[in-house]
């Protein structure tokens, strides 16, 4: 309801000329830009490179996070030696990495992918670790009663038990990676991407293009969350509740 109300307000504001500010572009103009961007293929060029970087970074970051989190959850030695450094590093704001990353990897795709894999890495590590550590003692006792081997304990008890938490991490990683995709395009300005399209719009004061970009970014984020929610609900059917409720 609220978005609809705002839209009507926006539409009326531009139609009746309540504001002469060039910041207020009529919805019709945004629509025209949308059509133009879509048909000319401009949108797809930007969106494709953004999404490609997003998925590459997310895949790298989430996989590394999964392994790292599992190692930290399963091995006290690993936790005691590497854990403290990890917990210190995770305190650093993600954007504080940008200068370092640009020195190491430049301003191109490699740097951007490195940045957003870092964004996906931290939540996946934390939630994987948390999930493994919170396997109930009661479940482990059942495994002992039935003489499970270490491998059976891991695959039949620890991993399934940690799965909901791991999914939370992956879900967060997906959201962070998408936010970081945009962040990377703002901060490491070079190349193409939906973020760069918006920067172009801002620099030329094409508010319609900026607004269109905002809408596209929102839609992509929404779709990613939606897909992740459905995959999760499908794989964790045994919980009896649907996580994806929109």
């Amino acid at each position: 309801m609220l978005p609809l109300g705002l839209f009507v307000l926006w539409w009326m504001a531009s139609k009746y000329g309540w504001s002469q500010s060039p910041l207020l572009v009529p919805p019709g103009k945004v629509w025209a830009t949308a059509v133009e961007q879509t048909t000319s293929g401009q949108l797809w060029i930007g969106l494709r490179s953004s999404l490609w970087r997003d998925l590459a970074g997310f895949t790298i970051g989430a996989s590394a996070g999964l392994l790292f989190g599992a190692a930290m959850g399963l091995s006290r030695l690993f936790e005691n030696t590497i854990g403290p450094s990890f917990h210190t590093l995770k305190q650093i704001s993600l954007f504080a990495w940008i200068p370092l990353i640009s020195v190491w990897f430049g301003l191109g795709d490699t740097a951007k992918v490195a940045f957003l894999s870092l964004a996906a890495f931290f939540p996946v590590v934390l939630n994987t670790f948390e999930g493994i550590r919170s396997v109930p003692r009661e479940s482990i006792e059942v495994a002992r009663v039935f003489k499970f081997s270490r491998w059976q304990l891991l695959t039949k008890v620890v991993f399934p038990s940690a799965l909901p938490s791991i999914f939370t991490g992956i879900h967060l990683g997906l959201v962070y990676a998408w936010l970081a995709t945009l962040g990377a395009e703002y901060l490491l300005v070079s190349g193409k991407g939906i973020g760069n399209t918006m920067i172009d719009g801002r620099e030329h004061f094409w508010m319609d293009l900026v607004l269109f970009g905002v809408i596209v970014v929102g839609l992509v984020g929404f779709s990613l969350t939606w897909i992740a929610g459905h995959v999760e609900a499908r794989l964790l059917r045994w919980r009896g509740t649907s996580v994806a409720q929109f």
Partner: protein
Amino acid sequence: MAHAGTLTISNLSKQYEVKGEVLPVLKDITLTINPGEFVSIVGSSGCGKSTLLRLLIGLEEDYQGEILLDGGRIVGTSLERGIVFQEHRLFPWLSVEKNIGLGLLNAKVPEEEKRRSIQEHIELVGLSGFETAYPYQLSGGMAQRVAIARALVNRPEILLLDEPFGALDALTRAHLQQELHRIWQQESITMILVTHDVEEAIYLGDKVVVMEPRPGRVRRIVPVALAHPRDRAAYEFVRIKEDVMREFIGQPAEEVIEPPLRAHDAPSDRLPSTFRFAV
């Protein structure tokens, strides 16, 4: 495969160390349980009855004295001994049949026999038609039935039950007690039931071991020489119940009969059984 074994417990003591202080939990328990026998162990909270069971299953070690099964010392857990906990402890991500199948994960029998055994045990606990249901779809009583099937599917010599019906409502509990009795007769294995419900102990047991707390000791062993099916309202039944109750609280029977609630529950941290309906 299943040969009901003889369990011999002699001079068993167990203590925990809490902040450097030795806390005795069990002291000098001596008890013989014969093959195929049903033994109930009753006692108030803190008398170490659950610890005793955890020692028998092998989840707790480090004790003094001896626990022998058919002459061999019990070391760690074994597929010869099954257990049903107070909570069903099913794995929520597995269906009923897969949960039961876990009991056979390390059994050395062919796949086909495993499948047959799982099906038989689903029937044994009366859950045909629920093979593919997940734990969240089951009621408390049904989940506990699955836990019983999971413990029995490997055909252990001894089944240990740690207050298995404690969290169930009174009607379901009475029904499952009857079912457990039927299963015990059908499978003819040794069962040891730990409970704080005196009636349940007498209804099911060949003998009732009364334990007293701090440290946990055997106070008395009361034989129950009543024919099955037992009638809880029968004179003999009530007489044994009063007898056990008297041991329990160390008070004359007359005073116990007065309040109908189970008096022995009162000092414990558990809810009175009447409130457990809501659980």
